[in-house]
């Protein structure tokens, strides 16, 4: 289904991202080859200028990634109108084996771009540019990932045929009648809710301790905790939170949250979760570069900021996810 405005927009964004990536990787190769901070040659001077080009391109890349992720979900939602059995994005994403992988790769891409920009911000705060090589090595590693992203997306779009029959959120995430397969079956609602609450409470606890006194081991478990919390939170949103937002016990879908019918509730929900995840996961690993010249203070202040930021966003996220549940309990189910 290439001849559809949404597919064309996605492909266009993909091509733009590839072009920006190609320019940035040219800088990366030149930096890895010729970088010499002590030199006064014209090449070194132009390389120092190119750092700004590549960082701007990566910032644009992050922006494009956010837009395409959103666009991808919305496009899938549109495709549902043309695919038998699909009622919303879930159906269209499952209509091809490339749908869900594309989504996941795009989601990870968000973090990868973010980490690069973080590395860059740390790097340019030291007069020695101590991370310049690792930064550009990382950038080069990002390029295959970007190619993977664009090709998965292209395969997905190419593979979508209107005559494919798929099942949609009602079947995939719904409570199972005997014999029917269910993507997230087996995990009970209550168990999930308890795990979710415990996990958020323990993350908040760790953050408070870390803000009092920094302990590297605790910081690492905090970051790992966030790594595990992200998928858990996504599952909980899908199976529990969403149905309270829709106020329909059998409507469970992670994507419909992003629709205007539900006041774009998904935007702040996913936004706070992903940003909190970014801060949380980056809190400990940034400690690895603390020993580089000129970075100790910068890293310390970033780590505190990251823990503070993730704690604040966690509170917002938890508030948002409980909001509809509590409303349901207080006001009743008619809403």
């Amino acid at each position, binding site marked *: 289904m290439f001849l559809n405005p949404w597919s064309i927009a996605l492909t266009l964004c993909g091509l733009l991202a590839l072009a920006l990536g190609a320019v940035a990787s040219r800088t990366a190769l030149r930096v890895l080859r010729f970088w010499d901070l002590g030199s006064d040659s014209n090449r070194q001077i132009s390389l*120092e*200028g190119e750092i700004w080009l590549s960082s701007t391109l990566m910032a644009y890349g992050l922006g494009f990634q956010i837009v395409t992720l959103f666009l991808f979900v919305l496009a899938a939602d549109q495709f549902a109108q043309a695919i038998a059995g699909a009622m919303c994005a879930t159906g269209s994403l499952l209509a091809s084996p490339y749908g869900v992988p594309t989504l996941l790769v795009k989601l990870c891409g968000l973090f990868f771009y973010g980490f690069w920009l973080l590395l860059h911000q740390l790097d340019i705060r030291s*007069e020695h540019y101590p991370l310049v090589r690792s930064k550009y090595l990382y950038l080069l590693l990002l390029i295959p990932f970007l190619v993977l992203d664009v090709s998965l997306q292209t395969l997905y779009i190419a593979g979508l045929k209107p005559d494919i029959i798929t099942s949609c959120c009602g079947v995939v995430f719904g409570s199972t009648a005997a014999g029917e397969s269910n993507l997230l079956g087996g995990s009970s609602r209550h168990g999930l809710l308890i795990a979710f609450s415990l996990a958020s409470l323990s993350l908040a606890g760790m953050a408070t301790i870390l803000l009092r006194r920094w302990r590297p081991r605790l910081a690492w478990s905090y970051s790992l905790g966030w790594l595990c919390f992200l998928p858990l939170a996504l599952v909980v949103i899908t199976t529990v939170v969403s149905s309270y937002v829709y106020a329909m016990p059998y409507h469970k879908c992670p994507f419909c949250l992003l629709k205007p019918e539900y006041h774009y509730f998904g935007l702040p929900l996913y936004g706070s979760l992903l940003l909190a995840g970014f801060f949380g996961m980056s809190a400990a690993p940034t400690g690895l570069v603390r020993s580089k010249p000129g970075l100790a203070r910068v890293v310390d202040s970033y780590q505190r900021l990251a823990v503070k930021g993730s704690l604040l966003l966690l509170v917002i996220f938890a508030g948002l996810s409980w909001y509809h549940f509590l409303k349901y309990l207080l006001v009743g189910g008619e809403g």
Partner: protein
Amino acid sequence: MLIALENVCKIYNQGQANEVRALSGIDLSVEAGSMLCLKGPSGSGKSTLLAIIGCVFPPTSGRAAIAGKQLARLPDRFLTIHRRESIGFIFQKFNVLPELTVLENITLPLLPLGISPRERRQRAKTLMERLGIAHRENFPAGQISGGELQRVAIARALINRPPIILADEPTAHLDTPLSREFMAIMQQLQAEGKTIVIASHDPLVFEHPAIDRQVAIQDGRIHVP
């Protein structure tokens, strides 16, 4: 020492066919609060030396410590950050943007520092009053006289309260009374504790009584007669 140069060399386009050795083996130290004049024929390297003192680019080799910072091997970004904290520049052609107003021109260095419009205006106002150009505040800089332009340039150099003022051929486009006036202002600034370095081959400047020290440059070296 506020400015300490040791064996400073500057080679433009190093390693290329159009390589130019603009400075070689410069040793120079300037105390805080003094006024120094660099003199020398055209092409001798005055502007290059001023650019190194002004943290515009680092020396190719040698050591240069300006206002407590070692410039060698410093990336461009940090030179810029140091420059905007420590250096005020006055250029030969004043380098104002003719379409911006006098006020906007004077406050240009404050924009990237994140200083609010109110504070910017306040700071500029004090300087403009002191230099007698307050009535020109909202005039486009392209429409005022040379003497006023000169004052705008001085006000802009002072707006971020730098300890060091650098002037490159400041009187080349001024007549004699205006040049005298300029030197009088410099004298005042020196009295307030600013360190001033002027590059000029105008006798009116280097023979001015306020100049503490003259340094002659020839072919990129300090010339001791």
